[in-house]
């Protein structure tokens, strides 16, 4: 067991090294005058961090993100739960949520820009549109998948409606809701990046676009990677929370 883990981690490390190596090599050749090396990108990243530009930018992006994702959670989860509790509503709303999930919502961005201009709220709206359907769909699925026998058990013990909600439905839906929050988060980040790139005004997107407009591609790479890093950090954070809340699943 221990050995095989050492092997697995060793190989993972090797994969990372190979990727970095190829990147560095491609930047040195260079494949393209615009393509920065890994080291240049690392340097730019350190600079952006050191100068405080990146933290500041993240501070701004975070506002749009929290506004959009927060609203999506506050609206999507209760709405999804409601859909699960009121079946006809669920069946109808489900179809529209499916459409929102299937359709490339990025196509709506120009419309958002035209109607709202570029403000924090426009970015937030895009983040909202991207993540809300997942949150609602999962909450809905969570309620819908409550095992019929648990309902029945609770009813057999003469539980009242609110008790069933509190003691059976919500805890039972929690894993799905949390999974939805995680997936929604990942989608929200996609929305944020699209908003930042297409609207390009405030946060990290601004660093990316500014860097690009002055052809500082090392800086642009660094900013891009920092967004991805931030997304992954947040996601793993949420995963921790999830693991803690769902300790009963082991």
């Amino acid at each position: 067991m221990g050995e095989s883990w050492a092997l697995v981690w060793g190989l993972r490390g090797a994969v990372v090294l190979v990727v970095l190596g190829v990147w560095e090599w491609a930047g040195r050749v260079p494949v393209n005058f615009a393509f920065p090396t890994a080291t240049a990108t690392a340097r730019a990243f350190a600079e952006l961090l050191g100068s405080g530009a990146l933290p500041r930018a993240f501070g701004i992006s975070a506002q749009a993100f929290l506004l959009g994702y927060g609203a999506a959670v506050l609206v999507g989860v209760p709405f999804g739960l409601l859909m699960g509790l009121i079946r006809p509503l669920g069946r109808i709303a489900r179809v529209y949520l499916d459409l929102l999930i299937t359709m490339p919502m990025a196509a709506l961005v120009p419309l958002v820009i035209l109607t709202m201009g570029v403000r924090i709220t426009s970015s937030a709206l895009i983040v909202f549109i991207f993540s809300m359907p997942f949150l609602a769909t999962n909450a809905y699925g969570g309620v819908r998948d409550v095992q019929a026998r648990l309902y029945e058990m609770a009813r057999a013990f003469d539980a009242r409606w609110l008790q069933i909600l509190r003691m059976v439905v919500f805890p039972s839906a929690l894993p799905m809701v949390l999974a939805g929050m995680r997936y929604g988060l990942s989608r929200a980040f996609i929305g944020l990046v699209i908003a930042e790139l297409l609207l390009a005004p405030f946060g990290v997107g601004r660093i990316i676009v500014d860097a690009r407009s002055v052809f500082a591609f090392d800086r642009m790479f660094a900013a891009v990677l920092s967004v991805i890093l931030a997304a992954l950090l947040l996601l793993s954070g949420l995963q921790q929370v999830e693991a803690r809340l769902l300790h009963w699943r082991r």
Partner: protein
Amino acid sequence: MVGPLTNVQRSATHPLGIAIRGVSKAFGRVRALDDITLSVEAGQFVAIIGPSGCGKTTLLKIVAGLLRPDAGRVEIGGVPVTGPGPDRAMVFQDFALLPWASVLRNVTFGLEVRGAPRPVRHAVAQRVIAKVGLAGFEHHYPHQLSGGMQQRVGLARALAVNPQILLMDEPFASVDEQTRRLLQDDLLTLWADERKTVLLVTHSMDEAIYLADQVFVLSPRPGRLFRIIEVDLPRPRSSQTTRASAAFGRLVEDLWGILKEMQ
């Protein structure tokens, strides 16, 4: 019994009888039950057996008050059933435990629903958990227990609300046969202890004859009462004395004969 419990655990001093009168139930076109009339005396152990789909579960749910019959009615201690009540508790085939709740929380579920204060809940839970042999497992989660132990939790949960009637739907169908035998004996001991009326649904002829005073055989499509078998084996029963007896073997074979007839 502890004093303050009385308002929660309504006196189970005397078990109640069940009277099922002309009950019918259809699901769309499927006539699950057709004019079932039978009665169970207070304190009796009664088994219901029949092929798959003959309406056993449906009948039990109607008695539990989870389903309304299309026709006929069920009376418990002479009072018509209108819904679930504290006089009945159910034990389920697949245990129906809350996976996110510890053994303790699962066992106290019924009491919590009925608003019993925490110290009362815990006192009662300790007692029934010990009774089903799970002392020390209070803080385990269902997935950490074997199937047999999970069903003990289900049993403890039903006992915790101290009902006069236990309704059991194939409670031992999901555990292996050796474990099942142990659980059956435990159930007999429990039942001897606190006389309750028991209505047990099963597929197992052996189980029905071994446990019950009376076996109701249902026939399918539509579900009808097909035969009543009186089990006059002496009590207390145990595997050695009861199962090894010729009378037991004969009763099981008779039952098998009846069931085969219907297939």
